[in-house]
């Protein structure tokens, strides 16, 4: 789960770099994202989800193509990773200081009291907001 949240952070960087047309940052983020995905795919229990990881690899590669084959909306991809980040934050008392994971959470919801995640100060547990991505 932690690796998926980190992968989400790297994909977010990749999307930002693409928007800025910063080729160097694009290459760096893509390389790091692929390395994390490879690490995830090598985990013992990852085999049953290999089909999903395979599609994810294809999406990562498509993002950096000059003429993408797919029509991936950045917001859809960010929303895909958000639940993993929220899960990590919820299970580690406000992320354990993991700023990478926090990048996936829109700023208004990073406060554990707002998000209802039980923090070190004993914030109440409750619902976690989601972020719609209709289009």
């Amino acid at each position, binding site marked *: *789960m*932690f*690796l*998926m949240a980190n992968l989400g952070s790297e994909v977010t960087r990749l999307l930002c770099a693409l928007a800025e047309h910063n080729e160097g940052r694009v290459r760096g983020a893509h390389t790091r994202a692929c390395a994390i995905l490879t690490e*995830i795919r090598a*985990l*013992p*229990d*990852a085999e*049953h*989800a*290999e*089909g*999903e990881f395979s*599609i*994810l690899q*294809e*999406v990562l590669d498509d993002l950096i193509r000059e003429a993408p*084959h*797919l*029509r*991936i*909306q950045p917001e*859809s*991809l960010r*929303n*895909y990773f958000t*639940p993993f980040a*929220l*899960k990590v934050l*919820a299970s580690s008392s406000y992320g354990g200081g993991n700023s990478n994971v926090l990048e996936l959470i829109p700023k208004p919801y990073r406060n554990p009291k707002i998000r209802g995640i039980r923090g070190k100060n004993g914030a109440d547990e409750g*619902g*976690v907001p*989601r972020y*719609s*991505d*209709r*289009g």
Partner: protein
Amino acid sequence: MFSTRMIIRIIEKPITRTEAKEIAEEFYGDMVKGVADIEREVIALGGKWHMDANNKVMETGSSQTNVWGFNLYPDKEGEDRIEYIALINIRPAAGNRNMYIEDADIRETIRKIIH
């Protein structure tokens, strides 16, 4: 990272909102990943990945071309309740190059199956 305890449920008859919330709470809390077979009109809910539910319906006789992924938010109302987004929805051969299900008819079919 991966839990050994993972329950995927095939839903052929209507379930209550409470039951859907229970499935959601098993992993993501407020959301549950699922797939719908638009031909058989069944859904599978639960798991960490859409591929989990996808594999489950395939085991019970579904054809991949009829299976689409979604996220269900049991506590939400109206259009916010279902999110037609999943990596498994990317199917260039079927004309869907997006994580979002672009065909409105398919989305509507899924909505009717879920409701």
